[in-house]
């Protein structure tokens, strides 16, 4: 890491600064707020914070369309990172709005609304960083707040179990990553990804085992975060025990940061070992999606089902990484965008049901269309998109992923993906069946939580619109791959 970091100019990273400063200000702001309005103030400030960052990003975007900008050789502003900023901010905004109703009675709200944007900042920095040390710092900035967010309801034993499990796995992930980074530094003498890539391509073959070992460490370290089977064990328990919006945040946000890091570090930094990691990712993809889908079919609660569904979707994205042609990476990025929207919306719907029906059991979804019609309808759109039925956006990203796999000669992986998609319909359609066909246990019409409904409606519209008009997003993704 160079010292130029200290002399970097402020301007191009403005959203990062505002996110950091505004987040830290949250507790103070909520104290200043009038006593009665305290809970509204911290949530509102947090939403403002994220929206402001989004606005700045959109405002500053045109200047990055040209050549990528390097800041202090450790952060790279290119279309790739901008793409991920959009994904992370979108997820964070969704989750924050939905949290408003969910967290309304929690005494630790200021902390919650401070940590959520801070973790988002960590994700954004992961996507920005082209230096392993900065990547590691960003990784920790992303992870540590989420450990606390998971157990924000500190008297709930389930949440504590979830948090402990998540923390242990997260800490192992960080430790393994750090070990991998130190090995790579030992081989190449640098932590800058582009230099690592150059060095590895001219490497002495005696060092090959070390490079492979560090590759394995990276795969495991990132694999824990993206819930690739067999490193997924924390996910179902954590998603179930955590406050449901935070589960959406983990599945929609931090998992996607793992993919950003994999693309930066492994796909770009270790291109030389393509044969090795291509094979590893292909196997991981097959195991992950198959296991996720089969396990999802056997779950009794909706949050656990979504956890396994999101594991399965990590498997679909791993197909693109295994292929790693430009079409494959485009598929990964497009699916990152789509799945971020879908999965966070699905968890928001789960949160709405949990709030009103007081249960996450699949039985409590019986006849949901009668007492929560908007939630049921939007959740149906989300589930259809998760299945990948056209014209939702989930169809087009899967189309690209499977096409890329078959195009690259991995016919078996493409067919496995398609069959998995068909299989996954069984449990998604099962929930639609419960909501629309089965009779409800109680017939009380409940008032749907407005903040959750708002997010769900926006997400459903996005799912349909970005599905039908996917050409501009695809063009943006194609352009962003060129800048990598």
């Amino acid at each position: 890491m160079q010292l130029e970091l200290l002399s970097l100019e402020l301007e191009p990273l403005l959203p990062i600064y505002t996110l950091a400063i505004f987040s830290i200000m949250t507790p103070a702001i909520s104290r200043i707020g009038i006593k009665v309005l305290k809970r509204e103030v911290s949530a509102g400030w947090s939403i403002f914070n994220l929206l402001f960052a989004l606005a700045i990003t959109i405002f500053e975007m045109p200047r990055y369309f040209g050549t990528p900008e390097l800041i202090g050789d450790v952060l790279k502003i290119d279309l790739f990172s901008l793409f991920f900023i959009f994904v992370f901010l979108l997820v964070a905004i969704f989750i924050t709005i939905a949290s408003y109703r969910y967290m309304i009675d929690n005494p630790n709200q200021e902390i919650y609304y401070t940590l959520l944007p801070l973790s988002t900042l960590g994700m954004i920095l992961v996507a920005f960083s082209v230096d392993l040390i900065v990547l590691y710092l960003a990784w920790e900035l992303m992870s540590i707040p989420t450990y606390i967010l998971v157990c924000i309801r500190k008297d709930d034993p389930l949440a504590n179990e979830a948090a402990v499990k998540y923390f242990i796995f997260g800490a192992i992930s960080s430790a393994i990553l750090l070990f991998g980074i130190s090995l790579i530094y030992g081989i190449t003498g640098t932590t800058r990804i582009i230099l690592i890539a150059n060095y590895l391509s001219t490497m002495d073959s005696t060092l090959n085992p070390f490079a492979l070992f560090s590759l394995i460490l990276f795969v495991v370290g990132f694999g824990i975060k993206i819930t690739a089977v067999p490193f997924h064990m924390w996910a179902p328990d954590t998603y179930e025990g955590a406050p449901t919006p935070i589960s959406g945040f983990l599945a929609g946000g931090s998992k996607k940061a793992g993919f950003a890091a994999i693309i930066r570090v492994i796909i770009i930094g270790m291109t030389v070992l393509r044969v090795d990691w291509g094979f590893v990712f292909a196997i991981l993809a097959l195991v992950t999606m198959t296991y996720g889908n089969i396990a999802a079919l056997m779950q009794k609660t909706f949050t656990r089902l979504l956890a396994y569904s999101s594991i399965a979707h990590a498997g679909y994205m791993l197909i693109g990484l295994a292929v790693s042609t430009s079409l494959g990476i485009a598929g990964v990025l497009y699916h990152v965008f789509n799945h971020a929207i879908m999965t966070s919306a699905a968890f928001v719907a789960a949160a709405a049901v949990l709030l009103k029906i007081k249960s996450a059991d699949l039985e409590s979804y019986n006849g949901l269309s009668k007492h929560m019609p908007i939630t049921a309808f939007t959740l149906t759109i989300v589930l259809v998109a998760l299945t990948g039925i056209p014209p939702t956006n989930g169809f087009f990203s899967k189309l690209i992923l499977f096409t890329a796999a078959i195009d690259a000669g991995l016919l078996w992986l493409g067919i496995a993906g398609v069959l998995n998609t068909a299989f996954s319909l069984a449990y998604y359609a099962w929930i639609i069946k419960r909501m629309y066909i089965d009779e409800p246990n109680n017939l009380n019409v409940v008032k749907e939580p407005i903040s959750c409904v708002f997010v769900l409606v926006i997400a459903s519209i996005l799912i349909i619109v970005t599905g039908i008009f996917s050409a501009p997003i695809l063009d943006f993704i194609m352009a962003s791959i060129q800048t990598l």
Partner: protein
Amino acid sequence: MQGIGIISWMLIISLIGAILSYGFGKRNDLAGKSIAIGFTILLFILSLYLWISANPVGDDFIFTENITWIPSLGINYSVGIDGISLPLVLATTLLTMLATMGSWSMISTKIAQYYGLLLLLEMGLLGVFVSLNLIVFFLFWEIVLVPMFLLIGIWGGPNRKYAAMKFIIFTNAGSALMFVGFILLFLAATPHTFDFFILMDTEISKPFQLIIMITTFFGFAVKLPVVPLHTWLLDAHVEAPAPISVLLAGVLLKMGGYGFIRINLSLFPEISFAYAPFFIGLALLTIFYGAGVALIQRDLKMMIALTSINHMGFVLLGTFTGNLLGLSGAVFQMFNHACAVGLLFLLSGVIQHNAGTRDINKLSDMLHRMPKTTALFVFGALASMGFPFLSSFVSEFMVFMGAINALSFTVIVVLAPGIVTAYFVWTIDRIVLRPKNQVQIGQYESHEAKMSELIPVAIFVIPIILLGLFPSLMLQTIVPSCQKLLENI
């Protein structure tokens, strides 16, 4: 930028109809029903207009539209019709219109959702038959699944949940494999594209064609359905409400037949005809299985469902004969079967509604109890048997001739209508002619159906007789396109 053509308007109108009949039906049942019927009539008139203005259709696609959608993936919104899709478009709008009318007194719960889904289903079905891009085709193909799943699952019989889940799992597994075939077709073309016309001119290597044929086979075969992939259909038919059975048997199954003609024969004909004996064998199995198993059914609806499996076997047989007579017979058979089976299914709903049962062993003496219903039932049975001067006779005769020309051992297929005649006559003997006092299993109360229930059923009689007497009305639309398809091989 060209404007939106009549075909897109039909799709848009059915979507608008779905939204309006749902929106108004929420407040007022009667409004929902009337709007739905109005929109289906409008769509039927539009498709009649398509037929009349396009007759003679010539041998090219007409009313084509092409709008760029996702150029980087070779996806464009491309629709158009020719003589093969036109009869199916006509069948879709006709059957949806009559099914909607038939639902008037049969469906009494959740009116708004029902009619909304029905029109959405119509949009999906129309879209499948008009699309000229594989992704658009697949889009509509999948859109059909969701309304059908809900229509069976919400308004079906006692075992509806099982039937709905079985339906969606079977058909979706089939369409997933079909989708792999589409991706392979996409990759076979240079530049990679899903466009139908470009794919038609693309030379694909034989082994590649074989993989594509195997994968797409499952999608079409499950829909058609080909024995042994037919089990979902029986459950779906038994549980589905009668108007939905009309659409299921009348139009949904044609998606499979249409897929075989449009995709198999147009895009990779060499391998399809190389394996024609395999398909013809399957077709014979389907024909005889459907006819044979129908003999022993007690449930009237199950019997009609098996009849329709039998008839769809003729479609498969005609498709793979490789000669003009067989192919145009297959397309004509799809339209005729839609009318005949639509009549019978809708009538089975009327019988259930007024007699309270569909059990062939319980029903008796309908001749005196419900004479008008009986007349229609006997007519429908005659139409299904392939009685001369009714439309099915012409198309089944064409398929026979084509099949015998292609492979002489298929002559045994003439036995199949014999079996069909046998069980229909036997059924008529039991439910129509048998006196009341000979029934041991229990009596039932019944009364003649209301006129409003019988009118939609009676409308089916018109195309059946008209096309039986003047088959050239429809054949002059079908034959040129079939000829062109066969010339391209």
